[in-house]
C-alpha cells in the first residue's frame, strides 16, 4: 500500500465501499443494520449485516474475515513444532485443545504413539481447556442477555483453571505444551490434589450458574423455542459439538472414535437434548462442563506412571502421507488434514474449525427472528473469531 498509483488507491477505496454495502443492489424494503464488526455482542470482529422490517430480520449475512491470519499459508513455511505453537491461537480460550488433533495427525503419519502417561495428561489438559472455554461461555451468556453479574463469577472461577494450566504448562492462554511423541514436561508436584480441589469449585460454579441463570424465568423465555435447528439441517451444515447434540444427534467424537487419548478408559455421559433451540444448546454446555469436571477427576485417579515422551529424533521429519484427525474440542469438531512430503514441515494443512461451520448456518437460522433473538442465537451458537477466521 505504500506507493500505489492514485487510480489504484481509488479503486481500492471503491472496493471497500462496495464491501460495506456487500453488493446489495436494491434496498427497497427494510432497514439494513450492521451488527459489528465492533459490537459488544460478537465475540470479536464479526460483522453481520441484517435487513430489518421493523424489528424482524428478513435477511442476514455474516461477513467474516476481519481476523483472517492466513493460518493455512503460514503452516506451509513452518516446521511441525512451530506449527504447534502457531495453532494454539486458533481458539484462544481453550488453546491446548487446538494442539491435540494436529499432534495426533503428525503422530499418525509417523506411526508412533505417545506413552500412556502422556496420553492421560493430554486428555486431562484437553478437558481443562474445555472447562476454561465453556465456563466463559456460561458467564458471557448472561451478559448477552442482560444479566451482568454471572460473568464475574465465571471469570473468577476460570482463573483457578487457568492457574492450573499455567502451573503445568507455563502458559495461561497459550500452553504450547504438546509435542510429537508426548508432552514437553511432566506434571509438577501437588498438581493432582490441587486440580481435584479446583474441580470441586467448578462444580459449585456450575450449580451457581444453573440456579442463577438457567432457573430464571426471563432467561428461559428468552431462549426457549428460539433458533430451532432441526437435526437434518444441523448435519448438512456440519454443526458440531453442543450445537449438534442440542438437536438430538447423539454424536461425540470422544466416545465415537478411537484416538490415542484416554477416553476409552473412563466413564462419561454424552448429553443430548431433543429441542434444538437456544436453551438446549446452552443447557448442554452447562452439563458438559460439569461432566468434564467428573472426567478430570476420574482421569486424575488413574494416571499411569512412566515417561511423558516417546523416543523421537531431535529433528522431526514426518514421513510422506496424509492424515485426518478430528477431536471433540470445546467449540465443536476441530480437525486437521495434514499432508506431508517427508519434510521438516507440512506440505498442506487444512484446518477444519468448528466455528466456521457453526456460523455458516446463521443466514438460515436468522430469518424471521427479532433483533434481540439475533443476539440470543449468536450467543447460543458460541463461536470464537479466531476459530472462524483462522
Amino acid at each position: 500500500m505504500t506507493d500505489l498509483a492514485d487510480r489504484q488507491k481509488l479503486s481500492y477505496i471503491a472496493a471497500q465501499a462496495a464491501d460495506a454495502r456487500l453488493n446489495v443492489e436494491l434496498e427497497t424494503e427494510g432497514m439494513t443494520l450492521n451488527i459489528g464488526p465492533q459490537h459488544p455482542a460478537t465475540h470479536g470482529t464479526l460483522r453481520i449485516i441484517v435487513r430489518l422490517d421493523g424489528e424482524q430480520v428478513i435477511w442476514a449475512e455474516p461477513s467474516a474475515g476481519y481476523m483472517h491470519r492466513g493460518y493455512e499459508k503460514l503452516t506451509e513455511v513452518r516446521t511441525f513444532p512451530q506449527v504447534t505453537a502457531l495453532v494454539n491461537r486458533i481458539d484462544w480460550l481453550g488453546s491446548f485443545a487446538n494442539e491435540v488433533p494436529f499432534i495426533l495427525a503428525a503422530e499418525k503419519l509417523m506411526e508412533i504413539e505417545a506413552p500412556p502417561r502422556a496420553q492421560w495428561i493430554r486428555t486431562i489438559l484437553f478437558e481443562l481447556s474445555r472447562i476454561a472455554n465453556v465456563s466463559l461461555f456460561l458467564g458471557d451468556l448472561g451478559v448477552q442477555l442482560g444479566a451482568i453479574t454471572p460473568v464475574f463469577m465465571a471469570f473468577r472461577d476460570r482463573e483457578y483453571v487457568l492457574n492450573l494450566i499455567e502451573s503445568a504448562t507455563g502458559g495461561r492462554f497459550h500452553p504450547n505444551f504438546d509435542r510429537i511423541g508426548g508432552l514437553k514436561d511432566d506434571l509438577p508436584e501437588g498438581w493432582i490434589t490441587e486440580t481435584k480441589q479446583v474441580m470441586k469449585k467448578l462444580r459449585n460454579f456450575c450449580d451457581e450458574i444453573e440456579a442463577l441463570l438457567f432457573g430464571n424465568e426471563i432467561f428461559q423465555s428468552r431462549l426457549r423455542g428460539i433458533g430451532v435447528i432441526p437435526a437434518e439441517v444441523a448435519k448438512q451444515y456440519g454443526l458440531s459439538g453442543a450445537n449438534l447434540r442440542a438437536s438430538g444427534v447423539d454424536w461425540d467424537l470422544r466416545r465415537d472414535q478411537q484416538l490415542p487419548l484416554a477416553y476409552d478408559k473412563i466413564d462419561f455421559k454424552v448429553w443430548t437434548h431433543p429441542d434444538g433451540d437456544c436453551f438446549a444448546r446452552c443447557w448442554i454446555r452447562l452439563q458438559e462442563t460439569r461432566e468434564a469436571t467428573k472426567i478430570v477427576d476420574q482421569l486424575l485417579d488413574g494416571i499411569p506412571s512412566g515417561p511423558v515422551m516417546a523416543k523421537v529424533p531431535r529433528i522431526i521429519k514426518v514421513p510422506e502421507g496424509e492424515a485426518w484427525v478430528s477431536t471433540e474440542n470445546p467449540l465443536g469438531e476441530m480437525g486437521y488434514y495434514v499432508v506431508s512430503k517427508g519434510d521438516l514441515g507440512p506440505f498442506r494443512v487444512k484446518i477444519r474449525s468448528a466455528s466456521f461451520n457453526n456460523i455458516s448456518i446463521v443466514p438460515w437460522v436468522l430469518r424471521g427472528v427479532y433483533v434481540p433473538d439475533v443476539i440470543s442465537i449468536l450467543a447460543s451458537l458460541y463461536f470464537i473469531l479466531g476459530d472462524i477466521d483462522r
Partner: protein
Amino acid sequence: MSALLAVDLPYWAQSLLRVLGGTVAVLLPAGTIVYLFLFKMMSFMQSRLGPMEAGPYGSMQLFAEVGKWLQKEDIAPARADLKVFRAAPLVVLMSTFLLVAVVPFGPDAYFTDFDAGVFYLLAVSSISTLGILMAGWSSANKYSLLGGLRAAGQLIAYELPMVLAVLGVVIQAGSMNLQTIVIKQNSDSIFGWDGLGYPYILTQFVAFLVFMISVQAELTQTPFDMPIAESELVSGYMTEYSGFRFLIFFIAEFATAGVFAFIASVLFLGGWGVPFAWFGWDAMDVGSIDNWMNVAGPLVMFTKMMVLTAIIMWVRFSYPRFREDQLQRFAWKVLIPVSLVNIMLTAIFKVAF
C-alpha cells in the same frame, strides 16, 4: 420555607432557596445512589471491590467521573439534527426536576403544596419519554433509532400500570395532595393501633409491587432495559452522546431513580413522617408538629429512598432482560389487569369499611 427558618424572607430569596433545595434534592440522591449502589453494591455482588483509588474507599470516584465527562470533547454526528440532539438530554433531566417539585420532605419542607400532586406527577413523568425519543431520532444512528422506538413503546406501555397502581393509594387517602397522603399515613391507625401509623404498603401491597415494576420499566433498568440493551444496541438512544450530554443522561437515570423512590416512599411507606402517635402530634393541626421534623423529615425520606433504590438496583444487576414483545405482553396482559382488580377491591373495601 419561611416557617422552617422562622424568618420572613422576600419572595426572591424563597425562590432561590427552593432552587437550591431542588438541585440538592435531585443531585444528592443521584450521587449517593451511583456511589453506593452502582459502584459498591454491584461490585460486591460481583465479587470485586469497585473503585478504591479515588478518595477513601473510592468515595470521590463520582467527582472524578464528573470531571472526566466534563472535559471530554463534545462530539455530535455529522448528520445529526443538532438542535434536537442538544436539547434531548436536557428534556430528560428537566422532567426529574419537575417531578421533585411536588415531593414533600417535611411538614413545612416542601417546594409547593399542590392539590393535584399525584395527577401532576404522573403527567410530568412522561416528559422523559419525549426526551428519549428526541435522542433516538436525532442521533442519525440506526441503533439509537431502534433504542428510541423501543423506549417509546415501553415507556408508554408502563405508564398505565403506574397510574392505576397509584390510583389505589389515592382512593385510600381520599386526596391527590401528596402532603395530605403523608399526613394521613402517619396519623391513621390500623384497627385502632396507631403504633405504626397506617402506611399504605400494608393494604396496597399489590399496588406497591406494580408500582415498583413500572418504575423499573420507566427507568429503563434491567429487566426492562431493551432501549439500552447494551449487548445489542451499544447504549441505545445514548450511543452518540459524549461528554457533558452523556453525563446529563447518566445523572438523569439515577436522579430519576431517586425521585421515583421518593415518590414511592411518599405514597406507600409514609413519606417523611414517623407515626404521629410516637410524639403525640395531631394530624388536624399541622402546626403541632415540632419544627425539628423539618430537618429530620428529609433524612427519613432519604433513608426510605435508599432502601427502595437498593431494591431497584439489586434487581437490575441480577436479571437478564426481557425481549420487547415479552415486555409489552407483561405490561398489557399482566400488570394492567392486576392493577385494575386492585382498584376495584380498594374501592369496595373503602366503601365497606
